[in-house]
């Protein structure tokens, strides 16, 4: 990792230093808080955890800002801080156990397991996600993932980073990122396949889309 983020905690000089650090922080916060909050919501099972994660991330970023050399994109640097903070967060009841996922466990063993049981046929992903139950099922599947797999899936498939960027954030080579991503996707697919949702989304639109 090229960017220096080791300033957490120990670098109180930065926080106490004079100059334009608050101004620099404000710009960083203004430009990136929405992105980091979106990431936090995708990573966390609960709203309060997501807000705590945003706070931890920007506090650490504030402390490390002076040391940021600009040889990594600032968004990648922030994702690195946020990812480390999310790994440190105590696993709450919804978080999956930290175990390795093996490919063998994703081989379907009964007829119904090959397809998704959620009714998405003929709908765009946006339309499918307007259904509260589908949205919830997906969210629950993602937060059930062991964290190191969830992190890869969130960064790659939800935040849209490249495998190389995810590797740089997590300290992994691209091959390891792709391997984890594949297992994470298979896990979520299996969860969505195992969870039957009754009815058709068109009938459930009134459930809202917040």
């Amino acid at each position: 990792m090229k960017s220096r983020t080791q300033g957490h905690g120990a670098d109180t000089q930065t926080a106490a230093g004079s100059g334009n650090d608050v101004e620099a922080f404000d710009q960083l916060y203004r430009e990136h808080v929405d992105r980091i909050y979106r990431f936090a919501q995708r990573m966390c099972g609960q709203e309060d955890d997501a807000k705590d994660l945003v706070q931890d991330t920007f506090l650490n970023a504030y402390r490390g800002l002076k040391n940021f050399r600009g040889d990594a994109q600032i968004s990648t640097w922030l994702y690195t801080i946020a990812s480390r903070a999310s790994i440190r967060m105590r696993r709450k009841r919804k978080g999956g156990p930290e175990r390795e996922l093996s490919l063998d466990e994703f081989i379907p063993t009964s007829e119904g397991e090959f397809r998704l049981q959620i009714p998405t046929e003929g709908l765009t992903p946006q339309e499918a996600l307007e259904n509260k139950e589908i949205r919830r099922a997906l969210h629950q599947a993602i937060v059930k993932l062991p964290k190191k797999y969830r992190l890869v899936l969130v960064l790659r498939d939800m935040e849209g980073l490249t495998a190389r960027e995810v590797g740089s954030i997590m300290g992994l080579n691209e091959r390891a990122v792709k391997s984890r991503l594949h297992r994470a996707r298979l896990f979520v697919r299996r969860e969505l396949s195992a969870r039957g949702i009754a009815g058709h989304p068109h009938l459930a639109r009134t459930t809202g889309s917040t």
Partner: protein
Amino acid sequence: MSTARRAMAIYRSPLHPHHGHSKARCVKVLRRLSAYLDDELSVGICKEIRKHLGACPNCEEFVASLRQTVSLCGHVNPAPLSPAFKARLRTQILQAAGRG
């Protein structure tokens, strides 16, 4: 019956005839599906996979469901923070950093 044996039985089920294909080939395809969806494989391997998918309804359904899953993940849009909360959070961060 072991998981692998049950899987093999499903792949050979008369409901989903699997003429000329072994379960080993299905598993080989399954291992590469993300790379296939992300267009990271060589033309030759893609062609092989497409050929298998055309002949194996179970794998065809499986790949469609994985594609749907990835696509759903890419379209989740959480609600943004309110401006009031953002301002409050900023104050809390600066206070915690000793700049409040």
